[in-house]
């Protein structure tokens, strides 16, 4: 820029050119269009001292020269101070931000977004190396893409107002569309209520449930508490920021969790393995962290421990509401190893198929009120120490605390014998049934099949009691299973418990059961086959060699089937009803006739002639009888 480009007299042009050089030298490192400011006072002081003139004269000349070149120098006056602004380009033009399209917009709202299976692909919610937790913004656009927010109708903005552009289009196209007057009126009637006249106090949930917030919180919670808690839990679980985390029914801030590392996990695992059984969270805290329940941060620390362990693969939650028990790999198995979990789940599947009649003798309400459940022990239950988790026990035992919880460990105490047993509850999954295991020793020590037992709650959530009615010693020949020979036989046994005479599997009533084949556990899931085998073994032959028939009483068959596997009476009746080979005996209620297959020779053993003679010996109180089987 030369002197000639400036306006004014020659002296003013020269002065303006000099000041322009001075100011551009001052802002030599500035951006080309960045403003370069200098006050009139500073310019005057500099030039007056250099030209050895009075400042007032110089100030007037500078002001006049620069005002004559206002296309280059912008004059600003504020608080009595005059400032001139220029730029290296020669004139300062305020910068205008071009936001017609931005990288941020392209990043957050691409034209062709990839499908999202997981919102964490869009933004990582993992904790940074430094523990400062910053809120992460996820635009509504991505949340809608991931299905976390409802998609707004076309043309509708966040505020629910039609976008101006669409509205304009609609106005333009409106005259073209011919709509019958009646339809227009109907449309207006439909649209009219959507425009709020006044603010509303009625909150409407996604399922249409209306909550009037003018009512008191207590009233609303009493009426809709469960739904509101459930909806809030779902919303908190789906929050991509994970500000609030949950364990069971407890909620706490993610940022307030106590930090626990791999070393903590190793110590906890070692402690559980050393104790040899699942441990309570309170026990772990007391033994490893020496925290006192009276400390103000105790509950927060306890939550942190449970939350952290729930996210570790090496630990399994086996507790119930009110007792957070943790198990880990390397602990001894609870209960029998003779029945695999997969096999037992299939054997108990009939409970989930609707053939559960366990509440016929005691209602669920009664169990809830009394806190105790009574049941008769079957042979299968007695032999393996397993109780199917039917409605009777479900009414008594606590449900799983966590959604994906597989099992729970309970402590069952016998107040009659001062003994304690660890019992594992396996919860039903899908169409597989659940069961309890771990009472084998107690059953064999003190009970016989047909005994009436009572399970009862205690003040501790994970502790139950088991009891039975004691009775004078009774000697009988009862069914037993010889594991080595895999054979059923009768043995003389003296027992000291009250029994249901119809359920006791003794030789007098069920002598033919000694011929029952002890099928492998995997075979026993074939319920039809088991039923037919029991009927053929237990029933009375009736018919001819060409048309063999077997007559049986269903009550006996229920007892017989429960030697091989758990089966409810309703399940057995359903199998009988749906099988054409069975027919009811019209003359006798509860008696059925089975059309057996024609065989060359009927299997021997339907009499008791070949039964083994078993020497009895004095039994200790409730001794194990396997040693007394026929040998």
């Amino acid at each position, binding site marked *: 820029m030369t002197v000639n480009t400036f306006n004014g007299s020659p002296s003013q042009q020269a002065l303006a050119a000099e000041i322009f050089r001075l100011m551009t030298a001052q802002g030599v490192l500035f951006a080309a269009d960045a403003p370069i400011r200098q006050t009139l006072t500073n310019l005057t002081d500099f030039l007056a001292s250099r030209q050895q003139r009075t400042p007032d004269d110089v100030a007037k000349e500078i002001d006049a020269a620069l005002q004559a070149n206002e296309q280059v120098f912008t004059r600003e006056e504020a608080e009595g101070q005059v400032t001139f602004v220029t730029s290296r380009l020669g004139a300062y033009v305020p910068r205008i931000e071009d936001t017609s399209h931005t990288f941020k917009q392209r990043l957050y709202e691409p034209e062709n977004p990839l499908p999202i299976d997981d919102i964490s692909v869009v933004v990582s919610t993992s904790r940074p190396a430094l523990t400062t937790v910053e809120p992460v913004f996820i635009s509504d656009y991505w949340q809608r893409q991931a299905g976390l927010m409802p998609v707004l109708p076309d043309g509708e903005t966040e505020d629910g107002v039609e976008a101006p552009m669409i509205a304009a289009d609609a106005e333009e196209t409106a005259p073209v569309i011919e709509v019958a007057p009646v339809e227009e009126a109907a449309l207006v009637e439909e649209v009219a209520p959507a425009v709020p006249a006044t*603010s509303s106090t009625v909150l409407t949930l996604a399922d249409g449930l209306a909550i009037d917030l003018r009512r008191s919180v207590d009233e609303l919670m009493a009426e809709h508490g469960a739904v509101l808690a459930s909806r809030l839990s779902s919303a908190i679980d789906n929050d991509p920021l994970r500000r609030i985390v949950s364990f069971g029914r407890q909620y706490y801030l993610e940022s307030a969790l106590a930090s626990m590392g791999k070393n903590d996990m190793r110590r906890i695992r070692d402690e559980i393995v050393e104790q040899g059984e699942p441990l309570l969270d309170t026990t772990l805290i007391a033994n490893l962290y020496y925290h006192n329940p009276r400390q103000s941060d105790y509950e927060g620390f306890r*939550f942190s421990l449970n939350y952290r362990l729930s996210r570790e693969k090496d630990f399994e939650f086996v507790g119930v509401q009110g007792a957070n028990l943790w198990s880990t790999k390397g602990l001894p198995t609870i209960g029998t190893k003779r029945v695999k979990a997969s096999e037992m789940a299939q054997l108990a599947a009939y409970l989930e198929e609707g053939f559960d009649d366990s509440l016929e003798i005691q209602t669920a309400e009664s169990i809830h009120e009394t806190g105790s459940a009574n049941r008769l022990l079957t042979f299968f239950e007695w032999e393996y120490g397993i109780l199917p988790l039917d409605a009777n026990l479900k009414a008594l035992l606590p449900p799983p605390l966590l959604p994906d919880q597989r099992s729970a460990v309970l402590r069952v105490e016998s107040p009659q014998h001062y003994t304690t047993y660890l019992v594992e509850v396996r919860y039903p999954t899908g169409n597989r049934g659940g069961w309890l295991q771990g009472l084998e020793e107690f059953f064999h020590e003190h009970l016989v099949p047909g005994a009436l037992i009572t399970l009862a709650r205690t003040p501790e959530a994970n502790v139950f009691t088991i009891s039975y009615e004691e009775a004078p010693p009774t000697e009988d020949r009862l069914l037993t299973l010889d594991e080595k020979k895999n054979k059923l036989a009768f043995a003389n046994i003296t027992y000291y418990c009250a029994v249901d005479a119809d359920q006791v599997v003794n030789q007098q009533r069920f002598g033919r059961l000694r011929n029952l084949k002890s099928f492998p556990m995997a075979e026993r899931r074939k319920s039809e086959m088991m039923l037919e085998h029991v009927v053929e073994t237990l029933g009375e032959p009736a018919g001819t060699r060409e048309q063999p028939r077997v007559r049986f009483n269903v009550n006996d068959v229920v007892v017989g089937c429960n030697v091989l596997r758990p089966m409810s009476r309703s399940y057995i009746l359903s199998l009988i009803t749906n099988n054409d080979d069975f027919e009811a005996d019209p003359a006798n209620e509860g008696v059925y006739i089975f059309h057996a297959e024609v065989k060359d020779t009927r299997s021997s053993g339907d009499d008791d002639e070949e039964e083994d003679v078993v020497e009895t010996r004095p039994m200790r109180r409730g001794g194990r009888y396997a040693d007394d089987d026929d040998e």
Partner: protein
Amino acid sequence: MDARTISYGETAIDKLVQWLRARGEPADAETIARQYLKILRDLVVEEKA
């Protein structure tokens, strides 16, 4: 605030976070739902009043 603009589980969840922080210990599902309802009620009813 107009109750129709409330998205249950999202609106004012930051106030619930603040309450939980001030509380200093975990809360069960019913307690947290009750407090959240109270927050929403304050937003709608008291603001209107």
